[in-house]
């Protein structure tokens, strides 16, 4: 990134930070509810690097453990969603009978927000990781399956014919043409899915388990630690951004041929 582009990218966030700081200092907002940026930074620092002896805060030094909990749940739920969503999406997109049998159910279940599944998840899986896994997996599953289906259906007829006349059987057509052709859409689904997974993990941890960033967020709110709440929000945003970057990088490697297309 050039210096100029970096400057443009940073201008708005810096302005927002200044505005935030001013709002707290000038008491434009009700005093004591919204912490100043410096206060959040200090709380975040203690949360990450503090030890039980140097600070009285119960959050001291627990950041990494909570991040690990949340990240592990996101990865587990996301992988589950991908492992089910991609093959199912390929079958729905490829086979009309499967589409007729399965697609209407998916379309009917999809509008139910994952938050609405919370009581059901807790009733069935209890206050355990399984609840979180279920909610995250379900949330990420929809965008993955829908985009995979879409990508498969978009496969160019000419490429299918080309593969068949070159002697490709159904399996080769599916793996070497249909799947490869759907890959850009599948990656779109994965990126949307990881976003939903972070939403779902916060919701799940607020209620269905007793650890992780979502749990800390709700706990800090209850005890009036708004600085920790804001630090948690930033943490989730950062993790969401990083995980999206990981998928984006992976897609650039897998779809190298497509980058060339854009420039050609």
């Amino acid at each position, binding site marked *: 990134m050039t210096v100029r582009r970096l400057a443009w990218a940073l201008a708005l966030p810096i302005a927002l930070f200044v505005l935030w700081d001013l709002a707290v200092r000038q008491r434009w907002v009700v005093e004591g509810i919204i912490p100043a940026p410096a206060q959040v930074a200090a709380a975040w620092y203690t949360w990450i690097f503090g030890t039980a002896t140097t600070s009285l805060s119960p959050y001291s030094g627990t950041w990494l453990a909570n991040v690990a909990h949340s990240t592990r749940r996101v990865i587990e739920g996301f992988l589950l969603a991908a492992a089910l969503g991609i093959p199912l999406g390929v079958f729905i997109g490829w086979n009309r009978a499967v589409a007729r049998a399965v697609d209407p159910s998916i379309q009917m279940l999809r509008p139910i927000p994952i938050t609405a599944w919370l009581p059901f998840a807790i009733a069935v899986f209890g206050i355990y990781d399984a609840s979180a896994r279920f909610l995250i997996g379900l949330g990420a599953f929809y965008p993955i399956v829908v985009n995979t289906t879409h990508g498969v259906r978009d496969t160019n007829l*000419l*490429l299918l014919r080309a593969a*068949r*006349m070159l*002697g490709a059987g159904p399996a080769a057509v599916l793996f070497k043409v249909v799947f490869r052709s759907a890959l850009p859409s599948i990656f779109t689904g994965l990126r949307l899915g990881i976003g939903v997974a972070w939403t779902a993990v916060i919701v799940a941890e607020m209620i269905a388990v007793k650890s992780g960033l979502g749990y800390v967020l709700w706990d800090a709110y209850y005890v009036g630690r708004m600085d920790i709440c804001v630090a948690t929000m930033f943490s989730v945003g950062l993790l969401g951004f990083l995980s999206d970057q990981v998928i984006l990088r992976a897609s650039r490697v897998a*779809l190298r041929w*497509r980058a*060339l*297309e854009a420039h*050609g």
Partner: protein
Amino acid sequence: MAPAVELRGVAKEFAARGRHVVAVESIDLAVAHNEFAAILGPSGCGKSTLLNMVAGFERPTRGQVLVEGEPVQAPHPGRAVVFQEAALFPWYTVLDNIAFGPRTRGTPAAQYRPRIDTLLDVMGLRGFERHYPAELSGGMKQRVGLARVLIMEPAVLLMDEPFGSLDAQTRSVMQELLLTVWERRQQTVLFITHDIEEALLLADTVSVMTARPGRIKTRIAVDLPRPRSLEVTTSPRFNDLKRRLLALVREDTFNPGADHAPRAR
């Protein structure tokens, strides 16, 4: 011996936007072994439909499509197709596109590697092995499209206006390349085109199709000496044949109503 390709009373009808369309009607055609047969016709006359039926992509509504005396059931590498748009797999390199057929059929690499090597040289693709289709010009893409079917050593080569979307210069180069390849190793070719000069330059016979519903109107033998090159297009005999074909095609273009038929590709 049965002809390499034979169509007997073939008709193809389909529904397009609720309308019943007759694409081709009562087509009778026989292509001998090692014959380079061109099918010449205006756009929308159903000549691609005809090729698609020989390829096994589409089934005739009536009649029979036979290759080596056997009815065509499904696509097969023995009837390999070069499409108008090269239809290369964009996620594979040039090398992987050419190797697609042999690899998919489980041919050992030791067997097809030497053939790829030869084809890379013949097709002028040396140095482009690791390129992706997106990095190639239209002419280069079509060279790969030709190489990937030649490696299958098809009994019948089906070409659907393969040079139709190339610029004039590139088209001439590709026509000469095809002539060289074909004259070195003669094989049965069914070549679809709307370009009279292209048909005369390349083919042994030219079958002229009428506008929709497509029928084969006439078939003329191209008695130009081989080996041919682009120079042949300036010979008096070439011009005689061209005049004849022009007259045949023109009759049809001015036929009122022919233009109103919906076009299907």
